[in-house]
């Protein structure tokens, strides 16, 4: 939160309290503002929140622990498919959401360890390329495990996933507050996802400012030195992989329930790279960066859809570059230029790994 606060332009440094409230108000009011532009924007915000969770999880692996994972979307897939298996007509199993969610997280976490074990010794670009392969392998299995026994229903995907049901309260239905006032389901999802993101931030921040967060940072900065102060780098790498994967798994469960349909197409390499770009764009290694990066890049294509076409039409009389091309162009340029010009990302905040108040206490002694 503090990182996010200080990332607020102008206000962040001068009046952190005001900046904090600004963020809270914006977060709460966002779907209402979005509603002015249409319900689809609320839906886009919902997805943006899912991307934030993904970016937070990937940031934990890439930014905190320094392990470049190009197959991260595989864990998202594991989460989504877990939900599809356990809460849909596919196997005709309908476990409650609160049972499926931890299972999805746990399976994804296990998948993280499964990936982590063999790649422990690899570093840098080799790690990246093996994880990329891992992501593709998972996707290919999802796409083909309908034969000889139908497990994933193959390329057809699984339809009719249960919606999120919080103790009898179905988020997929509009909430009827009074006779003629109801809250749209998209808003319900928004606030539920927001709560999940806030929970994730708190959890990740606690991790960051802890012996584990420090050990990850140490390992990332200098693995040899980290070993020399007694850090068990093997266990910590596995922990990073599985924690990151867990977030991916949770996001996947939410995605499956929200979308109601999962199919292997949603878990392509391009998605992995999109999430990585979010982390890089925002600023590797800090929570605010992941949040801002995910928010900016999840909204970018939709904004382009609305702005690029009319803009080009007024400027050139016809559309030169359609929004999707423009999006690809901007994404790729963002990756290149960010690395060249601003490698620390949009929000180059320095992550904290200690509580300053503890220091004041001991310094006072």
């Amino acid at each position, binding site marked *: 939160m503090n990182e996010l606060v200080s990332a607020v332009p102008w206000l962040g440094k001068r009046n952190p309290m005001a900046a904090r409230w600004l963020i809270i108000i914006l977060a709460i009011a966002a779907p209402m503002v979005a509603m002015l532009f249409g319900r689809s924007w609320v839906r886009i915000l919902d997805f943006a929140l899912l991307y934030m969770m993904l970016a937070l999880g990937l940031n934990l692996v890439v930014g905190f622990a320094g392990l470049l994972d190009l197959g991260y979307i595989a864990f998202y897939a594991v989460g989504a498919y877990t939900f599809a298996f356990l809460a849909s007509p596919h196997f005709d199993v309908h476990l409650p959401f609160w049972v499926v969610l931890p299972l999805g997280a746990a399976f994804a976490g296990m998948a993280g360890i499964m990936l982590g074990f063999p790649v422990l010794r690899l*570093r840098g670009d080799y790690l*990246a390329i*093996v994880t990329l392969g891992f992501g593709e392998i998972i996707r290919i299995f999802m796409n083909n495990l309908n034969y000889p026994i139908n497990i994933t229903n193959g390329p057809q995907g699984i339809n009719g996933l249960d919606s999120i049901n919080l103790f009898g309260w179905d988020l997929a239905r509009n909430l009827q507050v009074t006779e003629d006032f109801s809250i749209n389901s998209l808003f319900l999802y928004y606030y539920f996802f927001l709560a999940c993101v806030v929970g994730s931030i708190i959890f990740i921040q606690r991790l960051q400012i802890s012996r584990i967060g420090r050990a990850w940072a140490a390992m990332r900065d200098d693995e040899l030195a980290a070993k020399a102060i007694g850090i068990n780098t093997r266990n910590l790498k596995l922990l990073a992989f599985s924690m990151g994967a867990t977030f991916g798994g949770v996001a996947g469960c939410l995605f499956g329930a929200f979308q109601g349909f999962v199919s292997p197409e949603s878990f392509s390499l391009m998605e992995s790279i999109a999430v990585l770009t979010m982390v890089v764009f925002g600023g590797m290694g800090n929570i605010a960066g992941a949040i801002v990066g995910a928010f900016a890049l999840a909204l970018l294509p939709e904004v382009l859809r609305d702005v690029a076409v009319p803009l080009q039409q007024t400027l050139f009389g016809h559309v030169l570059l359609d929004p999707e091309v423009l999006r690809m162009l901007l994404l*790729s340029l963002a990756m*290149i230029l960010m690395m060249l010009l601003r*490698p620390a990302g949009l929000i180059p905040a320095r992550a904290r790994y200690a509580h300053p108040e503890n220091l004041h206490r001991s310094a006072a002694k």
Partner: protein
Amino acid sequence: METLIQQILNGLVIGSVYALIALGYTMVYGILGLINFAHGDVLMVGALTALQTMMFLMGVAPGMSPIAMLTIALMVAIPVCMMIGFTMERLAYRRLRNAPRLAPLITAIGMSFLLQTLAMIIWGRNYHTFPQLISTTPMQPIEGVFVTPVQIFIIIASALIMIGLSLLVNKTRIGRAMRATAENHRVASLMGVDTNAVIAFTFVIGAALAAVAGVMFASNYGIAHYGMGFMPGLKAFTAAVLGGIGNLGGAMLGGIVLGLVESLGAGYIEHMTFGFLNSSYQDIFAFIILGLVLIFKPTGLLGERVSDRA
């Protein structure tokens, strides 16, 4: 029996293309320790540039002989790719040479997508038919085994290019400088080698090879497309690692082995797994091999020591 021979032949053809692409990866990795993700996309630009040139030639000189046309197309595609290789190195990778290792890698991924997008803008999204100037009429050297002239051409051409490249690297002054720079930038510069120029040269040669590979690839399958380079690029990288990255012979061997594994794998996996797995898993062989090699024998088949730079 002819099925087996045919599968081996299929593997050899696709493997030769992988090998050619892998050479570019391995050279750049050898000298810079960088996985140039965009290498596969340089191949795509090569193919599409050649296509564009041929279209133009067919318009202005319809009677031109196919060989002349192909040669001119190559003569255009190669310099274009060289320019791209040079520009990438100069504008992006050089400035990141001392950056943390993730930075050039992420940049390279960005480069790959940038090239694809630009190609999409220039050439559109559709598949293009690529004129098959070398005959694709199959011959039957053995009863039941079919091979086309373009396939023979691909195998022979990659072998020749491989020989040419090893002569360049092993027998010439610049080749020596490349190897010296790959081993130790600092000492190479003490020998009077302008290491920046040598690195740029390596990129340019790699790009030229990619252009040739692109034209071969497109000639064989008769199509070209903005996304055609990514997958072969990835597989070729696997081939380079399999053979031992930084090693030219290894890249060639790795490419052929990978081609054979894919071809024979797709052909026989069903029997081998009693029908549990089938050809839908064709694309994972490369990744599984990659994982296994990196984990158990990171030096690859003919490997030299993998760079320790972290």
